[in-house]
């Protein structure tokens, strides 16, 4: 029983990070209908932003930790906006395939630039928040895991508020529904798309910081695997659907944790992907996605 609860806890804290990354994939898909493959590398830049920013703030303190977290989110938001402006906007009128391939190009560009600037060897990431272990009758929870839960929940609630209650959020939803009609009623599509990229990338930045806190070895290729799993999470939950991405992330994290802790640890990724195939066979639009008829 104890082992079961511990695995559940491990899975939830891993899944919360996947959820943060998955939100970026799903939001960009929602407004632009394409997969931003460079997203996983924005996540990596977030971790490195934390690594360099932490030099200017007190280590292992709450205010310092939050300052680094917010700084990294801002840097990633800016990076996301710049990527969209330079790489995707010029191609917006072209076919979706062109943008998709460009996204892969941007991803490779960021990975290799990262190796050039940061070096390819893994770096130990700094201690941002005060560290403490809590032991509830054999069940161990670290303060970092608690930080992951708190930060993820706060970010999810603020995201929900932005999308559902603010003017820009309404514009995002309108754009996702019908871009032409949105611009006809006076919405500036460029600004809304920039904002979406900024928001999604900021979440990836936060994910990068939380990930590097829990697994303190960062390298320029660290984004590939979590990015792939978060992408699966977004598809699992129904791509384009925000609560779906969060649910998918948590599910993938928990499944991974349980299969890793069992005798089938070699098969972990295979189990997650088989589940994805099964869900897509029976619910092609994902767990929470609405089935849409492609308009020709």
């Amino acid at each position, binding site marked *: 029983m104890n082992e079961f609860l511990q*695995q559940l806890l491990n899975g939830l804290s891993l899944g919360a990070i996947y959820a943060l990354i998955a939100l970026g994939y799903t939001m960009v898909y929602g407004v632009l209908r394409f997969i931003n493959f460079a997203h996983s590398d924005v996540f990596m830049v977030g971790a490195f932003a934390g690594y360099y920013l932490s030099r200017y703030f007190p280590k292992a303190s709450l205010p310092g930790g939050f300052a680094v977290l917010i700084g990294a989110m801002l840097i990633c938001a800016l990076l996301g906006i710049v990527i969209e402006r330079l790489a995707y906007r010029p191609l917006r009128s072209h076919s979706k395939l062109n943008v998709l391939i460009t996204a892969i190009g941007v991803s490779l560009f960021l990975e290799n630039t990262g190796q050039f600037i940061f070096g390819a060897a*893994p770096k130990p990431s700094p201690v941002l928040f005060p560290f403490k272990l809590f032991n509830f009758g054999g069940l161990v929870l*670290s303060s970092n895991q608690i930080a992951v839960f708190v930060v993820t929940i706060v970010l999810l609630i603020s995201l929900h508020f932005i999308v559902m209650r603010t003017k820009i959020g309404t514009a995002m939803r309108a754009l996702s529904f019908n871009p032409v009609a949105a611009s006809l009623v006076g919405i500036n599509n460029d600004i809304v798309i920039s904002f979406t990229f900024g928001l999604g990338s900021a979440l990836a930045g936060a994910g990068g910081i939380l990930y590097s806190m*829990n697994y303190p*070895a960062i*390298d320029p290729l660290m984004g590939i695997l979590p990015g792939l799993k978060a992408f699966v999470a977004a598809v699992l939950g129904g791509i384009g659907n925000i609560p779906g991405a969060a649910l998918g992330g948590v599910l993938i994290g928990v499944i991974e944790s349980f299969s890793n802790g069992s005798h089938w640890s070699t098969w972990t990724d295979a189990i997650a992907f088989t589940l994805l195939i099964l869900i897509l066979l029976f619910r092609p639009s994902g767990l929470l996605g609405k089935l849409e008829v492609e308009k020709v």
Partner: protein
Amino acid sequence: MKYWRGLILAPVLLLLCTTACNKSGGGSTAGGDTIKVGEFASLTGSEAAFGQASHKGTQLAIDEINAGGGVLGKKIDLIYDDNQSMQGQSATIVRKLITRDNVIAILGEVASGRSLEAAPVCQQFKIPQISPSSTNPKVTEMGDYIFRVCFIDPFQGTVMAKFAKDTLKAKRVAVLSDAASAYSDGLQKYFKEKFIADGGEIVVDQKYSSGDKDFKAQLTAIKAANPDAIFVPGYYTEAGLIVLQARQLGITNSLFGGDGWEGPPLIQIGGDALQGCYFSTHYSSENKSPEVQEFVKKFQAKYNGETPDAMAALGYDSAMVLADAIKRAGTTDSAKLRDAIAATKDFPGVTGKTTLDEHRNASKAAVIITIKDGHFAYVETINP
């Protein structure tokens, strides 16, 4: 629109070009007056500490040989390239070194998985390959042109199984190994065979894949089985994270591993959590023998006081064994050079006397190291 895009692209392309061209180091001079030797290594990426150490050792040996007049009256030109610690790069690099740079022999790699990728190419072109520190037995089974100057995993597995039983007094051991690494998978197999044969019990057998960062799930299962000690035959990046996460989950037992642990990042990542953990390796810089102390002195003089680890010592030995074989062969003809390397007997190296057996492996003593207050400390030497 078109113009400014071109203006941005031009310097970017130029930059990419120059970095790409700089990568193949060595600055080869025209053939004839030098003997070209190729080296492929993990100079960047997750096993960069291994690749860098091994390369520094090799370079030191080559410089020393050249300062002493070279071999056969010619200087050795070391042409090296980086595989970024990635699978799937080494075969291409080695093919390039052989066909374009016309090297007469290949030195490399530390990681068994990547030595295995290069070996078929060397065998196909009949160019001798000497691996400094790949311990998986399959490496030299790839063909009669493939050699190594270190011990192999069946020996290392036996050493660690004995160590677990006699020194750690462990009866129930958990194993956590890397399913995606030839080295880790081989070592865990030989360890388990010996440990079970000696009456021990493997209580859990868990796997991970290179590049994983989260091991809490596997460690939670291991904790539930309550073992006496945990064997982690992986590389240092993952080993550091595993020890750290084990301590966070409240596991207080000893964790121990193989020569894959020995890299400075292990301590940078694992920190205090590593106190009282052990691993086996090929040599210790604390060894008082004159060969070792002279090597440490030369290495520190060349590389700003850095203390050489086992990978550096084996990198040095691999180049020295090759130079000795070229001298004895009296030629760089590949078949004669192969025979000369195969005939290496009692060659005095930093990591002990090197004698290559009929399977082209060296048989050497293993050293047990512990981590004490943030540095590697010598425990004991175990002879084959």
